[in-house]
Every structure is written in C-alpha cells, then in structure tokens.
C-alpha cells in the first residue's frame, strides 16, 4: 500500500509534519530538531521508493481524489521528476541534520517557527516538482516563495531589506507566471500539462500562445536569477541565516530550471521551443552572458558568501546555456548539471555556514590559517572546490564535459569559451581562499589573529558529518555518472 500511495505521501508527510511542528515545539523545544529529521527521513524514503518504481515501471500517474485529468489534479512522475524529488528530500535532510548548532546560535529564541518554515519550504519545493497541473504548481510555488522570504528576513544586518527586494521581484515573477497560465487557459480551456500538450500544437500560430510563453519565460527567469534579473540573489543569500541559505541556495534556482524544462519541453513541444521560435538562441546568449557576468563579479568580492552567490549565478548560466544549445548531449549535460549543482552548492554553503559559526564572520580576510585550525572542514571544501572547477573524478567534470561536447557538436564555440573561462575564474577564486587559509598571515594581522588562533577549533560533529556526506556524494556521483545517465537521465531528455 505504501508503494502505491508513495507519490502523495512525499508531499503529505512534509506538509502534515510542518503543521504539527508548533505543537511539538510547545511540548518541548528541543524535540523540534528530531521531529524535522524524522519527517524528512520518511519523505526521503518515499521519494527513493518512487524513483525505484519509475526506473522499473515507467511513468507514474497518480490522480488526486480519483478524478481523471483534466477535470481533477494529477501527479505525473517521470525520470526527471523522480530525480528532482530524491535530490530535494536528500538535500533538505542533510541541511536539517546540519542546522542544529547554527540555528541555536543565530536564532536562539525562534527555533520552533524556523523549523516550521523550513518544513513548509521543503513542502513547497516537493509540490512544485511532482505536480502535473499548472495552477497547482503556482500554489506550491507561492508556498515555497513565502517561506523563503520569511526565512531570509531573519538573518543578519540588512536581511529584512534583502528579503523585501526578493519579495517584490519574486512576486513579479509569480504574477507573470499566473498571467501566462491565464492566457493559455483562455485559448485552450485546460490547466493540465499533458492535456495542453495535445491541444496546443493546433494553436502555435496564435499570438496569445506566444505572449503566454514569453511571460512564462520571464517569470521563471526572475525566479531562476538569470542575468540580468539576478539582482535579488546576492543580498538575499548572503544575509540569510546559514541554515536557511544552505537550504534555499541549492534548491530554489534549480527548481526554477526544472519548471522551465517542463514548460519548454512538456507543455510546449520541442518543435515550438527550438524550431518555431528562436527561444533556444536567446537562452544560449543569456546563459553565456550569465556565465561571464557571474565569473567577473565573483572575482570582485571580498565576502566569501557573496562570492558563492555569484558562483551560483554562473552555474545557472551553465544550465540555461546547455538547454540553449538544444541537442540531446547538451541537454543531458544540463540535467546532469542540475544534480551536480544541487550537491556542489549545498557543499559550498555548508562550509560557509561552518565558517560563519566558528568565526562569526564571512569575509575572506578573516580566514587566516583555517586549514590548520579546521582540517576536516577544509578537506571537504577542497573536494567541493575541485568539483566546481571541474576536475575529474568529481561530478563537476562530467557535466562540463557533456556540455562542452554538446556545444562542439552544435558548433557553438562561444559557449565552449565561456565554460572554459568560468573554470579558469573558479580556479582563481578558490585558490585565493586556499592561499588565505593555508598561510598564516598573522604577521600583518598580528595580535588579533593569534588570540583567535588558539581558540578556533574543529567544527561540531552535527555540522561536519553532513558536509562529509556531501563531499563523498560528489565523488560518488562522479564515479557512477555513467550509471546515472544510462538509467535516469537518458529517459529524462526530451525527444528532439
């Protein structure tokens, strides 16, 4: 019975436990942490069951309430969905385990409500990737966004303003998405993705459909932080609390890339997105500009977390550019990069959170001699940094390889140059941190660094173990990438 109902259970467990968290917190505050871990463990188990079922039996259709689509709401789970579900639940479980010490330090009296919004955020993401209905996606997009705004606003100095700007731009994005749904509904009468895929090909010449598609793309680009609509991202992710940025940063932009893939290839057939309109050309240029802009702006940062935010913006450029190249190999690379980027960004922000917890500061200048003080954390950081640069056998190398291969096959040399330029810039960025961290610049920073030097020790175990897990996952995904591609990603690539 669990296997049949597993698709619904994934979202329902996260949702019901989110609603029950204030009750648990009222009983005893310390129980919230364990309650969150229990709920996410159950959701992760269900999502692994769903992935297993999809790999063996094909696409799952789960009807809510038993009503047939398009009159009722339907869950459609294919390989792309199932992969995203496992990624989201796995990431949130790791961040939940990681979050104990950092939440207790940064938000000492508000842990109960923080964990409630944490679970609601995860519910929102899960609801977005699992559904097959456009309006249902909007509702869950708003759940995820609202909890994101609130989580970010509880951060350090200047966080409420960053959250407010994110709120305004995020609401513009969601409203544009809703306008797109409205325009499509007006000429088709349906909200179900599979039903629209059958009705729309007769309407591709209609101006309403064109405007709807354009508004979808702009709304999703705002949520995805595609350059130049990225203004909200650096402030919001830098000033958020460490556990919140470790949860939101890996997931929000990648879920938006997933929505874009769904709209471009499931609702509108590939023929529309690639041949009829020059959408993929626009996406290719947008991706190239995003990679260059993100890389250049990351070089100019003095703050570690802010630098990571610009690395995230560049990574979004990889995925969007990969879709823009529009052949099967490059889209395979883009989907593999979604998986890799979730893991890499989680690792980067987890290390940033540990450093913030220990040093109360996330500027690069404060990282003197951390390699000696925190060897294990910085070992994990090295693995993640190698993956972002793209060194085999870490996973980052393989997704870059597919993207480069795809763009060479399509003759897009600009994209290849952008990818290589980004790798070079990443080498400079991370080596700067390694250099600051390895050598003791105590001579110039003198007494301050030496007094702190004896006090700072290794990170607490609850924060260290998830980081190690992420580093191990990066290497394992890299080693097993052929297995993942053959069994999951090959089926997720749309037939062009």
């Amino acid at each position, binding site marked *: 019975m669990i296997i049949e109902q597993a698709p619904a259970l994934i979202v329902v467990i996260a*949702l019901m436990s*989110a*609603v029950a968290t*204030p009750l648990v917190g009222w009983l005893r505050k310390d129980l919230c942490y364990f309650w969150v871990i229990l709920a996410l463990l159950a959701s992760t188990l269900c999502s692994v069951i769903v992935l297993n079922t999809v790999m063996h039996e094909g696409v799952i259709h789960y009807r*809510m*309430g038993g*009503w047939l689509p*398009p*009159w*009722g*709401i339907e869950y459609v789970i294919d390989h792309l969905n199932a992969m995203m579900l496992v990624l989201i639940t796995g990431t949130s479980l790791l961040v939940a385990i990681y979050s104990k010490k950092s939440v207790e330090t940064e938000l000492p*009296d*508000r842990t109960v*409500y*923080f964990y*409630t*919004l944490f679970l*609601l955020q995860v*519910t929102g993401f899960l*609801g977005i990737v699992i559904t097959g209905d456009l*309006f*249902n996606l909007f*509702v*869950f997009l*708003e*759940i995820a966004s*609202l*909890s994101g*705004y*609130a989580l970010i*606003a*509880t951060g350090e100095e200047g966080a*409420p303003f960053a959250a407010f700007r994110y709120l305004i731009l995020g609401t513009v994005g969601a409203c544009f998405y809703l*306008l797109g749904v409205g*325009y499509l*509904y*007006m*000429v*088709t*009468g*349906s*909200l179900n993705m599979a039903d629209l895929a059958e*009705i729309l090909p007769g309407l591709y010449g*209609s*101006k*309403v459909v*064109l*405007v*709807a598609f*354009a*508004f979808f793309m702009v709304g999703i680009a705002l949520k995805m932080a595609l350059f130049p609509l990225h203004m909200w991202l650096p402030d919001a992710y830098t000033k958020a609390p460490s556990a919140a940025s470790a949860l939101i940063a890996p997931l929000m932009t990648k879920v938006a890339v997933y929505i874009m893939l769904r709209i471009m290839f499931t609702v509108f057939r590939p023929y529309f997105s690639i041949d009829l309109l020059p959408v993929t050309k626009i996406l290719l240029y947008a991706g190239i500009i995003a990679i260059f802009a993100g890389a250049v702006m990351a070089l100019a940062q003095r703050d570690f977390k802010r630098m990571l935010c610009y690395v995230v913006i560049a990574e979004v450029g990889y995925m969007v550019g990969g879709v823009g190249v529009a052949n099967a190999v490059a889209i395979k690379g883009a989907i593999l990069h979604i998986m890799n980027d979730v893991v890499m960004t989680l690792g980067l922000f987890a290390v940033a959170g540990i450093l913030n917890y220990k040093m109360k500061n996330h500027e690069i200048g404060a990282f003197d001699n951390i390699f000696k003080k925190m060897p294990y954390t910085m070992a994990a950081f090295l693995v993640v940094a190698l993956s972002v640069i793209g060194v085999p056998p870490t996973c980052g190398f393989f997704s870059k390889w597919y993207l480069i291969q795809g763009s060479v096959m399509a003759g897009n040399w600009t994209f290849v140059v952008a990818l290589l330029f980004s790798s070079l810039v990443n080498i400079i960025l991370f080596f700067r941190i390694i250099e600051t961290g390895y050598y003791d610049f105590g001579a110039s920073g003198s007494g301050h660094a030496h007094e702190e030097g004896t006090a700072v020790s290794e990170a607490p175990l609850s924060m260290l173990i998830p980081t190690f897990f992420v580093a191990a996952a990066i290497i394992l995904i890299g080693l097993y990438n052929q297995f993942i591609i053959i069994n999951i990603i090959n089926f997720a690539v749309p037939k062009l």
Partner: protein
Amino acid sequence: MKTLGLIVSIIAGAFLMYGTIDMPDWGDPNSPASIHVSPRYITNAATETATPNIVTAVLADYRGYDTLGETVVIFTAGMACILLLRRRKDVRKARR
C-alpha cells in the same frame, strides 16, 4: 530608475495588448474556455457531488488539492508573521 520602470511597464503592457488580438471575444459562449473542461462540472456537479453550488463543488471536490495548498499558504503567512514580528521576552520586559 523611474524612467526605466516606466519603459519596462509600457513594453510589457504593449506586449500583453498585442496578445489580445487573437483572444476570443468577451462573453463568447463558444470560447474554448467555456467548451472544454467546465461543461462537465456544470452538468455533473449535482449527481457526482450532491452540491448545487458548482464553485464549491469544484473547489472542494474536483480540485480540492488546490484548496489544501491555499490553506497551507495562509498557514505559512501566519507562521512567517510570528517568526518575524514576535518581540523577544527581554525586549517585552524592557518595554514594560
């Protein structure tokens, strides 16, 4: 900044109006939205859901999952307000 905002709004508005050229007329009973999915709601609501109010029938039965999502949205907003606005105990005591 203000002129940039004005230009963006005018372009977006013009683009939306360009889309209205192919739209079905206002109030057309044969528009796609009135023909495709909703007739079944109107004709079968009484028999399948025993509710004369069709909007309630759709909201609570056919698309009840959206209503659950909407309830969770309100809950999220409530929790967000508590998280953001509740004054801490020492500040509350100091104000008294």
